């Protein structure tokens, strides 16, 4: 109950700030940046895997949001809207860098992934998870980050990434299957660390 009313309060304030920006008080946008930039950074980092890229994505995300604020529709929260802008930009960044080896056509080549013995050397949970995330294609990685970390529905992700609902679903499924392949042996170790 308390959480719901708190969330609603936050959304109203976001909406009020957006209203002020649209009516010419551009400094009201500062509040939105202040409130959402750190979570956008975390999302951008989860998709790009690079702090420098994530910073760039955050910058570009808010610049774009500022310029297109009149296009914001309150069907989604501002947080969701800004997340999807960031996810698309993060995806573009990765495409430009061509950093990703895995593509949707190479799904079955993940057997070349480092085995548990190799992973044991890296020790850090973060490294292991990052290794697993690196097995995902751009689309899988983005769809998974939006579904898992941002809590967006498959339908919303499909709309925002311009994919069909089925393609989005398949991306999430493939992402989970690949994660399972790499992380499966590690799950017990992770749980010990989380607890």
């Amino acid at each position, binding site marked *: 109950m308390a959480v719901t009313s708190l969330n609603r309060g936050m959304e109203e304030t976001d909406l009020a700030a957006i209203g002020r920006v649209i009516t010419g008080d*551009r*400094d009201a*946008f*500062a509040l939105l*940046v*202040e*409130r*959402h*930039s*750190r979570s956008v*950074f*975390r999302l951008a*980092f*989860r998709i790009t895997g690079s*702090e420098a890229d994530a910073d760039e994505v*955050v*910058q570009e995300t*808010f*610049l774009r949001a*500022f*310029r297109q604020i009149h296009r914001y529709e309150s069907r989604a929260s501002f947080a969701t809207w800004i997340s999807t802008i960031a996810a698309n930009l993060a995806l573009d960044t990765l495409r430009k860098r061509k950093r990703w080896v895995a593509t949707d056509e190479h799904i079955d080549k993940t057997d070349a992934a480092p085995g548990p013995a190799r992973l044991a050397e890296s020790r850090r*949970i*973060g490294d292991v*998870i*990052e290794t697993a*995330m690196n097995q995902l294609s751009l689309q899988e990685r983005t769809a998974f980050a939006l*579904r*898992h970390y941002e809590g967006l*529905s*498959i339908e919303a992700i499909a709309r925002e990434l311009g994919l069909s609902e089925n393609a989005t*679903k398949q991306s*999430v*499924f493939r992402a*989970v*299957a690949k*994660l*399972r392949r790499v*992380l*499966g042996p*590690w*799950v*017990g170790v*992770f*749980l010990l*660390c*989380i607890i």
Partner: protein
Amino acid sequence: MHHLTDEDLVLIYYGESPRAHVEECAECRARFQQLQRLLNSMDAAPVPDRDASYGARIWANVRVVEAKRAGRIGWAWAGAIAAAALFAAMLQPKPSTEPVAMEDVRSRVLEAALDSHFESTRIALTEIVNDDAASIDTVDDLLADNRLFRQSAHAAGEVESEQLLEDLEEVLVEVAHAPTGSPELRQRIEKKGVLFALRVRAAKEGSL
């Protein structure tokens, strides 16, 4: 009875499919719990964070880019704002070890950015005093940046600069709200003595 596919279990995990079967069927429940452990463990990935002033820096940069696009300010001015944002960034404690000479860099960056800010403010206020009204957008930008600089100066313990910035802020607020070209406004700017203070400072820096 049909058992659930891996895909069904993923949808259930994310609340996009009803979980009734998982409650009833021990076999599927066991598989679901395994998936839960896998996906919950994804939350254990450490993600770097940004400090509380991150938003302010991002916003400062957005403003610079936008202002440049709108042609309201020159490159030098944009550089000064960017430097102020950089300075604010450097004030934040970093988790990693900092180079020893960081204090020097900080004060040099602030100095350079401040000089530029004072010069722009001096030019704008001189225009207003000479009835050559500066645009309200320029004044708004100056005011916003003045606030940023004042906070930076305060954090850096630059008492003298902070005092001048405080005086400037009062004047800029008045200018922003007064009708352009009002004679009382000119008198008030002159009475405050900020233009004089700015000229003195510029002379000291050897830029006038």
